[in-house]
């Protein structure tokens, strides 16, 4: 998987909020959704502009690791590790955020327990259930593990 595709799959679940803030249009949101679902590589500049908040932190991580910010491993480590630590440590405005919000923002490893039309019901943190949209992951079945972010299954593990 290209780093642009990996980045977008993890970042896209937050795009509806960027749309609610009117920082992107419906049309731009559709471009992001189509690319996230169909594994299309979008321009790096376009992604960096829309998700500038994430890139500030990815650049910092890349410097620490002495790698490029678009290095696949940097993107992966950001979303599966650093991003959750930032939330847990209450950095930025997360200090004032309620638990339920922080829980949605975090990336979790989850097990698929049911498939219902276009959604999956997944179990994470041992006992919590959440419905997530299936469109970003292909060929999944009950018992598979995926990562989840907000209302989406992001990546099959």
């Amino acid at each position, binding site marked *: 998987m290209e780093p642009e595709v990996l980045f977008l799959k993890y970042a896209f679940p937050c795009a509806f*909020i960027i749309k609610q803030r009117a920082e992107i249009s419906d049309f731009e949101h559709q471009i992001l959704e189509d690319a996230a679902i169909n594994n299309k590589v979008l321009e790096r500049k376009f992604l960096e502009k829309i998700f500038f908040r994430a890139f500030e932190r990815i650049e910092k991580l890349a410097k620490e690791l002495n790698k490029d910010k678009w290095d696949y491993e940097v993107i992966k480590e950001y979303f599966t590790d650093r991003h959750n630590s930032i939330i847990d440590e209450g950095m930025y405005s997360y200090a004032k955020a309620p638990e339920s919000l922080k829980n949605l923002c975090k990336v979790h490893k989850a097990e698929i327990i049911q498939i219902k039309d276009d959604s999956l019901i997944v179990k994470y943190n041992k006992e919590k259930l959440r419905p997530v949209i299936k469109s970003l992951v292909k060929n999944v079945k009950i018992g598979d593990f995926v990562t989840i972010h907000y209302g989406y299954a992001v990546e099959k593990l």
Partner: protein
Amino acid sequence: MCLAIPGKIIEIKNDIALIDYGSEKRQAKIIIGDFKINDYVIVQGKIIIEKVPEEQVQGWLNLLKNGT
């Protein structure tokens, strides 16, 4: 920060809830979970993904008001 806007359930018919966001109302599907009128929820892709616990609603709304 990924701050989604919670909406309040004002009607439930079968597995479809009508959700009030103040400026507009939208429908969303209940896939799993127990929901009742006046619950605050987060919707994505037309499904309800999470209920905001009652004691956290005010904190969430304050955060929205003060920006991030």
